[in-house]
């Protein structure tokens, strides 16, 4: 699945225009706990989260994130969006809940990342 397809499925909004939406997303992980995300992400992974602080972007310096989806209509502040843009890390916001996003993407064939 590409990020472009994923944005359509989640009725999402891409938060900076230069994001590479043709990027292939191999798998996903969903959590609001940073240590969980660090512990469970060992391959290129899409992250679904309700966290919008700058440390979520900082995480992508440590582990390989193909993109981040902010759920429940959450929207990070401009400086956080800029941090993502500097890294070329696509970020998307959707009004859907974490559970609903996970269900939609799983049904569309996006597998859970290996933990």
């Amino acid at each position, binding site marked *: 699945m590409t990020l472009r397809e994923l944005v359509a499925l989640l009725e999402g909004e891409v938060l900076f225009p230069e994001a590479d939406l043709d990027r292939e997303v191999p798998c996903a992980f969903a959590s609001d706990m*940073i*240590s969980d995300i660090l*512990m469970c992400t060992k391959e290129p992974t899409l992250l679904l989260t309700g966290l919008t602080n700058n*440390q979520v972007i*900082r995480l992508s310096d*440590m582990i390989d994130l193909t993109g981040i989806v902010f759920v429940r209509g959450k929207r990070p502040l401009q400086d956080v969006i800029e941090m993502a843009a500097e890294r070329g890390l696509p970020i998307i916001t959707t009004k859907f809940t974490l559970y609903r996003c996970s269900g939609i993407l799983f049904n569309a064939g996006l597998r859970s990342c290996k933990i």
Partner: protein
Amino acid sequence: MAEYWYIAEGFENRVQEYLADNGDSEVDMMFTVPEKDFNTAGKGSSEVKNLLKRLGVDSEVLRRIAVASYEAEINVAAHSHGGVMHSAVYDDHIHIRFEDEGPGIADIEQAMIPGFSTADELVRELGFGAGLGLPNIKKNSDAMHIVSEKGSSTLVEFIIFFS
């Protein structure tokens, strides 16, 4: 001072050899980690990872180093009055030390239990405080050492070999 040691199976000799004669490191990096400053927390780990990437360290080893280092750096920012991160890069491993200014760990064995956390509300709101910081450092390290005591400073250090 209470002390905790962990050495991964199969690494006992390499770790003992290094500790007996640690020689000169090839690159040293120092970062300060201020108390509760979550704008800069993580920058040191990020820069160390970038350096090692340029040096050609394997990507899976890089991930382990970055995760262990980031967890330790966040611990200093979240739980201490601030501290210092010191990374020493050798030809076949990295040794990262975090020394803070207290207030110390009351019970290290308890702090090592996955899920045990003393994080405050501010730290939890940011997504930290899962109680997995120290266990995650251990999981990703070849050796880990903690020295602390309530009312005193804490040293958390770990060693990861490149191959």
